C-alpha cells in the first residue's frame, strides 16, 4: 500500500495535520518517536487505527530514497524495520523549550522554576497546584533579559500574572528588555496586566543583578532606569524564560530527507520562496516548530497550510512544464556525479546512472552549467541558444559615437522582471542592451560567459537574485564564484575586468535596474570597445 502522506512527529502538530487530512479521503501513516509519554498516550488514544490513518509508535525514519509521488522510506518500528512507499512527507515535530537558568546564573530549585514548569503547575482548568506554599508573596518573571524574547511567551506570562494577581495576595513582576507585544491582543493584555498590578521593569542600558545564595534564595538588585532609583527584590519564586530550539531530531532527519536547515537548525531555509510549508524538495513539507519558532495557536492553524500543500500537490500535473526540465544524455555522462551532488532540489537519482526526475526538477539548469562532460541539456540553455539572444548588428567601426553593446544575463525570477518594470516606468535603458533571460543565475556557465565575450559585445552584466532570495539557494552563489574566477583571468587576455560585472536585484527594482545599466554603459563608454569582440 502506498500512503498519500507520511507524517513525522509525536507532538500536537503531527496530530493536527492528521486530523485535517482525515477530512479528505487521503490515507496517512503517522510516525511517532514517542511511546510512553503521558500526553502522547492521551493524544494517540483519540485515534483508533483505521485504513485512513496508521499510527506507528516508537518509530523513526532511518532512510529515504525516491522522489515526489514515490518516496521509499525505511522505518524503524520498535525492533522491526519496515519499508514503506509514500507520495508525500510532512515533518511535524514538536519544539524544544530550554530554560535559560544558566544565562541568569541560576540553578533550578523550589524557588526557581522554568516557565514551562510554572505553567504545568497552573493548568488552565482552574485547579491550581500552587508551586509553593501560601507564603509566596512575590513572584518574579524573567523575560528576554539574557536574550531577546518572543511575543507568545510574554503573552502566556502575562496571562499567568493576571491569574496570580487576582488571587489578591501575590505581587508579580515582569523584568524584560524589549516588551514583545507584536501579536494580536497582546498590547491590550499588557494594559490589563499592568492595571491588575503586575509591575513591569524594563531594562535598556543596565541589567538586573541576580544572585542566588547558598540556600538557593534569589536576590535581585536593579536600578529603575527612568527614576535612577536603586531597588532590592527578594522574590519568593523566580520564573525563568526559555529559549525555543528546534527538536534535536531535526538535524539527522534533515540529512536523511535531503532538506536544508536554517542557521538555527529548523528544516526550512529563511527564504521567501519557501512560504509557507515548502522545503527545497518537492513533496516534502515542514510545518509548525519544524520550520520556525511559533506560538501554539499558529502551530494549530498551520495544519491547514500543510493539508492544503498536500492536496494541491497531489492534484498538480507535475510534468506540465516538461520542456523546462534538465535531461542527462547517458551516452555522454561519465558518472562523475557532480549533478547528483549539486542539484539543490535533490531531483537527480542514481538508477544506476544518474537521471533527472522530471517531476522534481525545478528547471534551474545548474546541473547543465556545471556538468564537466556537457552531458546535460535543457531547452534554450546551450551556448548557441544564448548567443542567439545577444545577436545584434555589428556597429560601423568608423561611427562617431560609440554605443556600448551590453550583454545582460537576467534571472527570470528577479532581474528580468525588474527590466520589465523599468520599461513600464519609462526609464531610459542603454540602446545597446541585449537580454538573455535564464531560469536561475546558476544556469550561467563559464562557457556562456567566455563565448559571449567573443560576440559583438563590449561588456557583460550578470544580474542575479539577492543572496538568500535565490529560489535554488545556491545558484546565485555559484555564479558569483564563476564570475570572480573569470574576472581574475580577464587581464591575462587583455580585457579590463570591468567588462564583466555582477549585481543582485529583486523583481520590484525597476529603478535600480535602470541605474545599474546606465552606470555600466558609462564605464564602457570611457574604456571603449571590447578589443576581442567578434573574434570567434
Amino acid at each position, binding site marked *: 500500500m502506498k500512503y498519500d502522506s507520511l507524517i513525522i512527529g509525536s507532538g500536537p502538530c503531527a496530530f493536527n495535520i492528521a486530523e485535517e487530512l482525515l*477530512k*479528505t479521503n487521503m490515507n496517512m501513516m503517522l510516525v511517532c518517536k514517542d511511546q510512553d509519554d503521558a500526553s502522547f498516550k492521551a493524544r494517540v488514544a483519540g485515534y483508533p487505527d483505521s485504513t485512513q490513518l496508521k499510527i506507528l509508535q516508537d518509530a523513526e525514519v532511518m532512510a529515504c530514497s525516491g522522489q515526489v509521488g514515490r518516496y521509499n522510506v525505511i522505518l524503524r518500528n520498535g525492533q522491526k524495520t519496515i519499508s514503506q512507499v509514500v507520495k508525500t512527507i510532512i515533518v511535524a515535530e514538536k519544539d524544544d523549550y530550554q530554560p535559560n537558568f544558566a544565562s541568569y546564573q541560576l540553578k533550578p530549585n523550589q524557588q526557581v522554576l522554568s516557565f514551562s514548569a510554572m505553567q504545568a503547575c497552573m493548568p488552565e482548568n482552574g485547579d491550581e497546584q500552587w508551586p509553593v506554599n501560601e507564603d509566596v508573596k512575590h513572584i518574579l518573571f524573567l523575560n528576554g533579559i539574557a*536574550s*531577546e*524574547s*518572543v*511575543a507568545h511567551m510574554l503573552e502566556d506570562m502575562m496571562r499567568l500574572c493576571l491569574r496570580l494577581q487576582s488571587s489578591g495576595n501575590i505581587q508579580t513582576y515582569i523584568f524584560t528588555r*524589549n*516588551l*514583545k*507585544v*507584536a*501579536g*494580536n*491582543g*497582546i*498590547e*491590550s493584555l499588557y*494594559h490589563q496586566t499592568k492595571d491588575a498590578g503586575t509591575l513591569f521593569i*524594563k531594562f*535598556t*542600558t543596565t541589567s538586573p543583578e541576580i544572585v542566588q545564595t547558598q540556600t538557593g534564595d534569589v536576590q535581585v538588585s536593579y536600578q529603575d*532606569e*527612568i527614576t*535612577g532609583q536603586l531597588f532590592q527584590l527578594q522574590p519568593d519564586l523566580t520564573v525563568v524564560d526559555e529559549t525555543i530550539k528546534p527538536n534535536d531530531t531535526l538535524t539527522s532527519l534533515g540529512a536523511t530527507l535531503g532538506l536544508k536547515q536554517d*542557521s*538555527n537548525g*529548523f528544516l526550512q531555509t*529563511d*527564504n*521567501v520562496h519557501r*512560504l509557507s510549508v515548502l522545503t527545497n524538495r518537492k513533496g516534502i513539507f515542514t510545518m509548525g516548530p519544524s520550520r*520556525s*519558532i511559533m506560538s501554539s495557536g499558529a502551530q494549530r*492553524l*498551520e495544519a491547514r*497550510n500543510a*493539508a*492544503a500543500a498536500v*492536496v*494541491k500537490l497531489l*492534484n498538480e500535473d507535475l510534468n506540465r512544464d516538461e520542456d523546462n526540465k534538465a535531461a542527462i544524455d547517458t551516452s555522454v555522462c561519465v558518472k562523475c556525479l557532480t549533478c547528483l551532488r549539486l542539484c539543490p532540489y535533490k531531483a537527480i537519482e542514481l538508477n544506476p546512472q544518474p537521471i533527472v526526475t522530471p517531476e522534481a526538477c525545478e528547471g534551474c539548469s545548474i546541473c547543465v552549467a556545471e556538468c564537466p562532460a556537457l552531458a546535460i541539456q535543457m531547452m534554450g540553455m546551450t551556448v548557441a541558444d544564448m548567443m542567439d539572444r545577444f545577436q545584434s548588428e555589428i556597429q560601423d567601426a568608423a561611427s562617431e559615437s560609440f554605443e556600448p553593446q551590453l550583454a545582460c544575463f537576467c534571472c527570470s525570477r*528577479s532581474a528580468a*522582471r525588474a527590466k*520589465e518594470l523599468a520599461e*513600464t*516606468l*519609462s526609464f531610459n535603458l542603454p540602446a545597446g542592451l541585449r537580454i538573455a533571460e535564464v531560469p536561475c543565475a546558476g544556469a550561467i556557465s563559464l562557457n556562456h560567459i567566455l563565448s559571449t565575450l567573443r560576440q559583438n559585445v563590449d561588456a557583460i552584466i550578470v544580474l542575479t*537574485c*539577492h*543572496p*538568500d*532570495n535565490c529560489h535554488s539557494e545556491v545558484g546565485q552563489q555559484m555564479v558569483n564564484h564563476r564570475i570572480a574566477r573569470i574576472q581574475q583571468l580577464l587581464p591575462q587576455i587583455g580585457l579590463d575586468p570591468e567588462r564583466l560585472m555582477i549585481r*543582485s536585484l*529583486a*523583481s*520590484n*527594482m525597476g*529603478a*535600480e535596474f535602470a541605474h545599474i545599466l546606465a552606470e555600466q554603459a558609462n564605464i564602457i563608454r570611457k574604456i571603449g570597445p571590447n578589443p576581442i569582440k567578434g573574434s570567434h
Partner: protein
Amino acid sequence: MDNSKKNVTIIGGGVAGLTTAIELSQYSFQVDVIEKSPFLGGHGIQYACKATDRCVKCGACVVEEKLKTAAALSSIRLHTESQIEKITQSKTYSVSLLKRPAFINPTKCTNCGICFQRCPADAINRGFSTGNQPLFAISKNKCLYFKDGSCTLCASKCPEDAITLTAAETTESFNSDAIVLATGFQPYNPEKKPYGYHRFVNVITNLELEQMLRRHSVAQRPSDGQAPGKIAFIQCVGSRDAKLNHLWCSKVCCGSALRMARLIRSRQPEIEISFFYIDVQSFGKNFEAFYREAQNEIEMIRSIPADIYPAEDDSLRAIYYDSSTRQSHEPIFDLVILSIGMLPNPDNSQHTEMFGLKSDPFGFWSYESSSALTNGKGVFTVGAANGPMSIAETVIQAEQTAWQVYNDLVIESNNAP
C-alpha cells in the same frame, strides 16, 4: 477536482486577496476579485526592496509575484475601481458590482505616460508595478474636466486614443458561493500628533518613505531633493497609544523601519540615523543577528519625542527626554520619518453588519472567529483586516483561508450524508 462551477468573490485586491485568489484557483474555483482603487496589490505593491548585501525578507517582492501570478490566471477575474453595490443571500450570494468609469481603456493604453506628464492638474495617478494595467488612472477629484469641463488635454494627446473622459459607470452582477473579505488596513493619519505632519515638509510617514525608496532608491529631503544628513525614525505613531485607545501594536513597523534604515545606511553611508522607540519588536527568523548589526549602525534611543519644531533651512528639532541621563535633548534632523500604525479599515463596520461578523473592540476582525462562524454562511476574513500583520503572515493566512473555503464548499458537502 472540478469546482469550476463554484465561484468565490474576494473583496480587496491586496496581497491577502490576490493570494487567496491564486490558492482558490488551484482548487479549480472561479474567482472574482473586487478592488476599489485603480491599482491592485494593496499597500504592499508600493514598498521598496530592502535588501542590503542580502535579502532581509521584507516580503515586498512577494506582493509583486502574487500580482503577476494572479493577473496571468484565466480563472481569476480582476475588477479594479469596483465596489460592492449589494450582496444578497438566498442559496448562494448574488453580488452586484458598481464599476467606476474606465476613462483609460486598458487594452489600448501602452503605458507611454504622456497623459501623466502633460496633465496640468496633477490628476493622473501612476501605479507601481507591471501588474498595474493600465498603469495610469484619472482622479476625478482633481481633474479639470470634471470640475468645469475646461480641459481634455490628456484625451487629445493620447497617441492610442485610449482616453474617454465621457465614459460611464457600469454595473455587473453574478452569483457566488462564498465571500472572502480581504479589505486590509487603513494607515493612521498623524496630522493630529505634535510632529508637524503636513505642516513641515520634511516630516513624512514610513509609507511615504517606502514609496520614495521604491521610486528613487535613496532617501531625499522633500524640501530640496537633497540627501539628508540626519534622519530620525519615530516609532509607534498611532499605535500602542492609550490616549487614542489604540491598544495594539502594529507589528510590522519595527521591522519595516529598521530594514529601511539599514538600506539607507548601505546606500548612503554618510547619513546618520536615530531610531526612537518604546520596545523593539522581533521580526524574521534571524532577528537577534539583525538587531545586533542594526545597533552598530543606528543610534537607538528608547524614548518617543514629545514635540517637533521647525529649525533653520527646513530642518527639524525633536525634543525628547533621555532617561539614561535624565535630561531633555533637542537634536536637529533633516528628515523625520513617522512610523504610522495600521488601523482597521473604516469599510469594515459595514461588512461586519452585513454579514454578522465579530470584530474586536477596535474594529479588526479575527481570522479564527470569522472562519469559525462561517459554516453554512460562506463568509471568510483574511489579512490585515484581521489585525496588523506582515506580508508573510498574510500569505500564510490566505493559504489557510483558501483551504477553509475548499473545506466548506467541497469537502464538507462531499462528506454530507
